[in-house]
C-alpha cells in the first residue's frame, strides 16, 4: 500500500470555529468500529480526532446489535475448515480477550446504573426446529471449544434460567459456556460518546457527502451541508455506507462489493415469569445468526435476529420478520414472551462483503484507510480492530492478519460444488425454521432437489466460477441488481489467474472450480 503511516501534520482546529475545518484524523462513521478507533486514538494522544456520523445511527448495524461477546457460540462447520476462516475465527478470540479491559475503561462513563456487561455466560440450545444445519453447527461449536481448550458443560436444558419454550419446540440438548457473555450495545455506544467528549474528540452529528482529493490522495471530507474538513488521514468506518463513500473518490471495478445484511431484532420489557440471566441461543441458522435472547438489564431483554441481503440500504422492518421473531421467540425461548412489552424495534444493516471477510487496511490513495465488512461480529471485534488500526495509523505493526487488506481478490474458501451443498443446507434449514409447509407427499429429498437445481442454474446463468457463500448466492439469484453486481465484479478477474489464494489462507478441501 502506498501509505504506510498517517501523515505527520500540523493541522489544528480553526480558532473559534464552531465546527473544525481541520483535523489530524477524521473518522467517518460513529458505529462500534469508528467509536472504538476514536477512543484508542484519543487514548494514545495522536492528535485531533473528529468523528462524523448521525447521532440516530439509523440504518447502522451497531445501534441494532445484540452485542453478544461470543465467538464459540457463533461457530459453524465453516469456521475452522480453512486457514482463512480460522484466521478470522481467531480474530474473534483475540477480540474476546480485550473486552474486560475495554469495559473497565468505559465503566465510569456509563449512561445509567445498568451494567454495560449484561451477562457473562451463554447457553446454546439444540432443538429440532432448525433442521440438520442446527445439528452440525452444534457439533462444530463443541469441537471448536475442545480444540481451543475452552470451558463448556452439557446441561439439562430445563436448568437454563428463564428458558421456557413450548413443549413441541423444546431443546433436547444444551451446553453452558461460562465465559461468553454480552454487552448492552446502546449503552456501550453512549459511554464511548461521553468518554470521547471528555477526552477532547469532536463528534459531529452529520453525514459525509463525499471524500475530497485526487487520484493519488485524499485530503478532506465534505459534509452533507458542504462544510469541508481537511484531514491528515480519513478513516472510512461507515459500515454499509463505506463502499459508496470510497467510490466518491476511488471508483475501480475491482473494489469488493459490500451488501446490506438487513436485520431485525426487538427489545422487550419482561412482564412476568423467570427472567433470562444469560445469552440463550441456537447455533447459527439458515443464512442468519440463529434465534437468541440477550439480557439487557433493567428488566429488558433483546430478542434477535433476522438477516437478509438486500439491494437498498434502509431501516425498514418486514412484517414477515416481525412475525418470525415474535412467534419463534415465544415458541422456542419463552412462551411468556407473548405478553412482554416491546420497547424498541431494532433494524440495521450489517456490512457483508462478497467473500465474507472484513476489509481493513490502507487504500491505494494516500491518506485513506478503510475498515468495514465485519458482517455480524463488528461490535465484538471493534476494540481489537481499533488497536490494530491505531497501530497502522501510527506506522507501527498491525496485530491482525494481512488477508483482510481491502484491495484484494476475493478469498476462496470452498469449491462451487461445496457452495451448492451449503446453499441447499441453508435453504432447507430456512424452510423448516420459517414454518413453511409442504404437501404431505413431498419429501425432504424433493425439496433438496429443488434447491440444488436452483443453485446449479444460478451458477450457469451468472457465468462465474468463484464459489459463493450461501447468503450471497441467495442474494444473487433473488434479484437482477444483485446478480449483476456479483457477476460484474467477479468477471473483472477473468483471465487474471482467477481469484486469490492469499498466504496463509489455503483452502483445505476448498479451491475454485
Amino acid at each position, binding site marked *: 500500500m502506498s501509505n504506510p503511516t498517517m501523515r505527520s501534520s500540523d493541522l489544528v482546529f480553526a480558532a473559534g470555529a464552531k465546527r473544525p475545518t481541520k483535523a489530524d484524523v477524521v473518522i467517518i462513521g460513529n458505529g462500534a468500529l469508528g467509536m472504538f478507533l476514536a477512543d484508542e486514538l484519543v487514548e494514545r494522544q495522536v492528535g485531533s480526532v473528529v468523528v462524523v456520523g448521525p447521532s440516530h445511527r439509523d440504518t447502522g448495524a451497531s445501534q441494532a446489535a445484540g452485542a453478544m461477546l461470543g465467538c464459540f457460540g457463533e461457530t459453524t462447520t465453516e469456521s475452522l475448515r480453512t486457514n482463512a476462516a480460522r484466521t478470522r475465527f481467531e480474530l474473534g478470540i483475540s477480540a474476546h480477550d480485550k473486552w474486560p479491559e475495554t469495559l473497565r475503561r468505559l465503566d465510569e462513563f456509563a449512561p445509567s446504573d445498568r451494567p454495560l456487561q449484561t451477562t457473562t455466560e451463554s447457553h446454546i440450545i439444540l432443538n429440532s426446529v432448525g433442521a440438520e444445519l442446527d445439528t452440525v453447527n452444534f457439533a462444530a461449536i463443541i469441537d471448536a471449544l475442545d480444540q481451543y481448550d475452552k470451558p463448556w458443560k452439557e446441561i439439562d436444558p430445563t436448568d437454563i434460567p428463564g428458558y421456557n419454550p413450548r413443549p413441541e419446540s423444546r431443546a433436547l440438548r444444551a451446553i453452558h459456556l461460562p465465559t461468553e457473555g454480552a454487552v448492552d450495545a446502546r449503552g456501550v455506544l453512549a459511554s464511548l460518546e461521553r468518554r470521547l467528549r471528555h477526552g477532547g474528540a469532536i463528534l459531529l452529528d452529520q453525514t459525509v457527502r463525499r471524500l475530497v482529493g485526487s487520484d493519488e490522495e485524499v485530503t478532506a471530507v465534505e459534509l452533507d451541508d458542504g462544510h469541508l474538513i481537511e484531514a491528515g488521514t480519513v478513516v472510512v468506518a461507515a459500515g454499509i455506507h463505506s463502499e459508496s463513500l470510497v467510490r466518491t473518490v476511488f471508483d475501480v471495478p475491482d473494489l469488493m462489493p459490500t451488501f446490506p445484511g438487513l436485520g431485525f431484532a426487538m427489545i422487550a420489557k419482561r412482564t412476568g415469569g423467570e427472567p433470562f440471566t444469560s445469552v440463550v441461543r441456537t447455533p447459527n441458522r439458515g443464512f442468519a445468526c440463529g434465534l437468541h435472547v440477550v439480557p439487557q438489564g433493567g428488566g429488558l431483554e433483546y430478542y434477535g435476529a433476522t438477516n437478509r441481503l438486500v439491494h437498498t440500504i434502509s431501516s425498514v422492518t418486514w412484517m414477515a420478520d416481525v412475525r418470525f421473531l415474535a412467534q419463534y421467540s415465544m415458541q422456542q425461548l419463552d412462551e411468556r414472551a407473548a405478553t412482554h412489552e416491546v420497547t424498541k424495534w431494532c433494524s440495521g444493516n450489517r456490512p457483508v462483503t462478497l467473500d465474507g471477510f472484513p476489509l481493513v487496511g490502507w487504500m491505494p490513495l494516500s491518506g485513506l484507510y478503510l475498515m468495514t465488512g465485519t458482517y455480524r461480529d463488528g461490535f465484538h471485534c471493534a476494540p481489537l480492530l481499533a488497536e490494530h488500526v491505531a497501530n497502522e495509523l501510527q506506522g507501527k505493526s498491525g496485530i491482525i492478519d494481512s488477508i483482510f487488506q481491502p484491495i484484494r481478490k476475493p478469498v476462496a474458501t470452498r469449491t462451487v460444488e461445496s457452495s451448492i451443498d451449503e446453499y441447499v443446507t441453508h435453504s432447507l434449514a430456512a424452510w423448516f425454521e420459517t414454518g413453511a409447509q409442504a404437501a404431505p407427499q413431498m419429501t425432504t429429498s424433493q425439496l433438496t432437489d429443488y434447491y440444488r437445481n*436452483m443453485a446449479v442454474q444460478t451458477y450457469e446463468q451468472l457465468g462465474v466460477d468463484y464459489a459463493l457463500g450461501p447468503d450471497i448466492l441467495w442474494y444473487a*439469484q433473488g434479484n437482477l441488481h444483485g446478480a449483476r453486481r456479483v457477476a460484474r465484479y467477479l468477471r473483472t478477474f477473468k483471465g487474471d489467474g482467477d481469484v486469490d489464494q492469499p498466504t496463509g489462507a489455503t483452502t483445505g478441501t476448498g479451491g475454485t472450480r
Partner: protein
Amino acid sequence: MPADQPSVADTVRSLVTQRLNLNGYSQDLRPDDNLWSLGMTSLTCLGLMLSIEDTFEIELPEEALKESTFRSINTISAAVESSRK
C-alpha cells in the same frame, strides 16, 4: 446502419433464442411475444440480462432491471436503444 449489420432487434432475438433454448421455436417468435409465457424464469432472465449487457456493451439503468423490461423482444430492444443514447 450498414446493411450487413444486424439490427438491435435481430441480435436480441438471437440472444433470446439462445438463452431461453427456443431454437425449435425461433421462426415463430414474434417481437411482441411474452417471453415469460414461453418459459423464461427469474434465473434465465438473469442470464439473458447479463448477455444483453455484454453483447451491446451497455449497462442498463437500475430502473430497467425489472421483469417488464424483459417481457418481449420489443421491450428488451427498446431498453437497449435507450441505454445506447
